[in-house]
């Protein structure tokens, strides 16, 4: 029972996303941070206000963290299709037993 709770906590803390999601996360983080950096310099330079540039930069970085770190659903739109166990064709039944040793299948 404690195992189940720990598993659930681990899933939440892990925040796993699929591979397409990881690619998207990387592109998003790079693009948003670079654009935020550019905007913060330009706005600061044109308005001659360095405190504003700092605020824009830090705010944009916080936004990037919020956008990329939590496992949002749009990062999980292409889940990995794992092959069935033991080399059998794909099992359509919703019931699958955990394989403890090779002799245990569910058909």
């Amino acid at each position, binding site marked *: 029972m404690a195992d189940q709770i720990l598993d659930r906590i681990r899933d939440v803390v892990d925040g796993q996303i699929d591979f397409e999601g990881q690619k998207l996360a990387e592109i998003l983080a790079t693009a948003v*941070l670079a654009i935020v950096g550019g905007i913060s310099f330009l706005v600061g330079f044109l308005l001659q206000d360095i405190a504003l540039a700092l605020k824009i930069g830090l705010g944009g970085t916080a936004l990037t*963290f919020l956008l990329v770190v939590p496992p949002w659903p749009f990062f999980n739109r292409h889940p990995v299709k794992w092959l069935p166990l033991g080399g059998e064709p794909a099992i359509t039944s919703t019931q699958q037993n955990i394989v403890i040793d090779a002799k245990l299948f569910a058909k």
Partner: protein
Amino acid sequence: MYNSLTRIQAVFGFFTTVAFVVASLIAASDFAAPRTPSATVKATNVQVVKGRPHYYSTKKEEYAIIKFSLDADLSSLFTWNTKQLFVYVTAEWPALPAGGTNQTNKAVIWDTIITSPSADHLSNLGPAALRKLRKQSAGKSVDPNRGKLVLKNQKPKYQITHPSGRIASTADVILRVHYNAQPWVGVLTWNQDADLGLWRKLAGGVSAAFELPALKTAAKKAGSA
């Protein structure tokens, strides 16, 4: 990037890179801003008195008290990247014997820190003076008026002497104005000896030569302006 921890690390890593690049751009933007500082300084009242380095000292030394007038326009030194400007006035006179290997004697007689509005919260002022300073800038992020200094017969901060303890009747003393511009990001810069691109060297900034009088404070030199 497969779990939240690695995503945090990746985003933070790129954030530090972006921060470094933006800071370099800001520091480089300083070179695109022209600097045209100018200053005139003259000694108005010079005295030499006998004194001690501190209360319990048995040594007796001669100290020169050089009051001066300063008119400076250092407003072009204030950009968005300026944190504060440190301005100081030195008294310099040649070392004897003339033509020898000793360095010119130099001693700071007065200095001040002029903060840019973005750094006012770091200044060494009490709440009332700070409020007054902020009101003068009227909410501007860069206030060039802070670079305009007008001092009349200013009392020096420091009384100067020579390591030998004798400074009376010294000839060929001049006052020189220096500044040190301290940026938020970038290199520290001082007043330069030659023009560098858009940055001009300080126009003026050196007083006419005057003499330190003999002891007995009766000698009141009006200063050779």
